[in-house]
């Protein structure tokens, strides 16, 4: 089956992808309960899921390439092309499937991914992964498994290039196991200048006792992109999530997260900021769940959004789901526009309207960009924001 219209594919058709793989069978079982996603699936309600899944795609058949040496990991259409010399990386069958993930696509992605790319991180390091998509009208499914050994600090920087992948759909995601007292810092930047590929990414992070998980995501520009993230946080672990989104044109960008306090003394902090221009939509659908035994929990969520046009649309749903009674928690959300008085104040000092507006918008976004410690990465992110911001006059 090379041509695939997912909305017309029955589950039996997808189960054919199990190929006697026990973990894929597990994914199939869970999917049979969740069903394929559609407009009625709560977390896709505001996402263009029907339009994306009703298109006809050519299912891209991955191949095993001769892996070259490079400074970064390069993955093209889900195929591993190159890697740094000392990085342990392999292709494997499904390594792990979470049987409680909230996202249907997580399981579809597991079923459709032929071989997963597996990274074993045995020593502290920083790694950049370049995801490249250049096939048109294709469905490109792949997954990456990452095991971070105990006591190791791992910083991952992900960037995406896909201007040539017109009308393609990418399913991808990370399954990450963060060992005891490990630190996993994940920086993800996805900037799209012209409409090309769509993506539904579905990630799962498991943080063992005392581990630290830090995600900073930066979504910029156009495209229909959803990142679904579930993180399970064990005793004494810590998750710090920051999401910065600048959308324009007809973009739909979504961050759909479930951060779950599984055990005692877990701390979660989630801070999102959105700036929306033109007809774009951003979705921040974020649940922090505190399970019954997860006492002494700390959970704080906040989202602030600026709408630059009347037609921009923000879906902001920070949610706390609390099943314990010993915790400190807060959540909040504000959506507004730029105050004319702020612009006037700057103009009264000789700064023109365009520059004033930019200063205010970048000031709003700055705190999250500044949270990136690595100066080179910070500069790279800022450049990407600038490039897309500057392409049209506001």
């Amino acid at each position, binding site marked *: 089956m090379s041509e695939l219209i997912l909305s017309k594919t029955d589950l039996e058709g997808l189960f054919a992808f199990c190929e006697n793989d026990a973990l894929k069978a597990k994914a199939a079982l869970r999917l049979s309960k969740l069903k394929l996603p559609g407009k009625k699936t709560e977390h896709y309600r505001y996402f263009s899921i029907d339009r994306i899944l009703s298109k006809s795609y050519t299912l891209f058949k991955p191949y095993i390439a001769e892996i070259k040496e490079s400074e970064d990991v390069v993955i093209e259409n889900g195929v591993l092309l190159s890697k740094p010399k000392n990085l342990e990386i392999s292709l494997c069958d499904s390594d792990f499937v979470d049987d409680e993930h909230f996202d249907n696509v997580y399981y579809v992605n597991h079923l459709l991914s032929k071989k997963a790319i597996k990274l074993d991180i045995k020593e502290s390091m920083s790694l950049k992964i370049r995801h490249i998509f250049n096939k048109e009208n294709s469905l490109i499914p792949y997954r990456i498994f990452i095991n971070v050994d105990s006591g190791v600090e791992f910083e991952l920087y992900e960037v995406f290039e896909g201007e040539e992948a017109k009308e393609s759909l990418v399913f991808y995601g990370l399954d990450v196991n963060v060992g005891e007292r490990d630190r996993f810092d994940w920086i993800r930047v996805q900037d799209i200048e012209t409409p090309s590929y769509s993506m539904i990414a579905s990630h799962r992070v498991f943080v063992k006792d005392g581990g630290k998980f830090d995600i900073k995501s930066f979504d910029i520009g156009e495209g229909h992109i959803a990142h679904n993230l579930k993180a399970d946080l064990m005793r004494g672990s810590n998750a710090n999530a920051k999401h910065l989104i600048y959308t324009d044109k007809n973009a739909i960008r979504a961050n759909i997260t479930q951060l779950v306090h599984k055990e005692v003394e877990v701390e979660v902090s989630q801070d999102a900021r959105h700036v929306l221009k033109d007809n774009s939509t951003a979705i921040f659908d974020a649940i922090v769940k505190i399970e019954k035994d997860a006492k002494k929990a700390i959970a704080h969520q906040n989202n602030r959004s600026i709408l630059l046009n009347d037609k921009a649309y923000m879906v902001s749903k920070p949610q706390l789901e609390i099943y314990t009674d010993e915790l400190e928690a807060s959540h909040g959300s504000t959506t507004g526009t730029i*105050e*004319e*008085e*702020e612009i*006037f*104040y*700057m*103009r*009264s*000092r*000789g*700064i*023109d*309207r365009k*520059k004033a507006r930019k*200063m*205010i918008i*970048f*000031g*709003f*976004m*700055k*705190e999250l960009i500044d949270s990136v410690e690595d100066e080179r990465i910070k500069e790279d992110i800022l450049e990407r924001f600038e490039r897309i911001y500057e392409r049209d006059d506001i």
Partner: protein
Amino acid sequence: MMMEIKNLRSKIGDKEILKGLNLNLEKGKVHAIMGPNGAGKSTLSKTIVGHYEVEVTEGDILYKGESIVDMEPEDRALRGIFMSFQNPVEVPGVTNAYFLRTAVNAKREFEGKEPLNPAEFLKKAREYANFLGMKPEMLNRSLNVGFSGGEKKRNEILQMLMLEPDLIILDEIDSGLDIDALKAVSEGINKIKSEDRTFLIITHYSRILDYVNPDYIHVLQDGKIVKTGDYSLVKVLEQEGYKAIEEER
């Protein structure tokens, strides 16, 4: 003449506030405007700087002989008009130093000068901040965010010192200031007084005027200047109130 305001009528929304106001501001002089609440003092300053809420319906404002009523606010600022805000806005994420350097260099570019490099700028800004009794770290904080009322007013004066404007409108710069802050602000004003610079000080109180020695006192009532005098007029107003001016008319 620094500024000539001729038969100026302006409104905010549907309400006419300035009703045929005439006022000349002389070069090198300190003018003060006093008047009861609602007389139009703040509307006058907003009209001069081109505030978006104000619509000029009649009359003209000539600045150095050139009409400015149709000019954008930034163009007025670049030509040397400065107004201190009663309630300066807070802008998160934009540091005081970055904002100020952008403003200073916009003006320098307009004047055909080279931009100040960060080191030159910081040296000057720190010097002035110190003169005004501001902590140097305030330059690195977000613009006006979390500043006390006094700190915001000092910051307005810091901007004034850095921008070196020709016409300086200080709208209730003295409101809410303690004695030390008032003294610092007044010293800032006195520091840049010159024969080429004009001040228009809008105030309810005489105490700032005691520090800055105005040349002219103008009384603004119901959208018009109804009396102009020297400093002795302040004492009359303090003793007899604005009613005395009304009765005189």
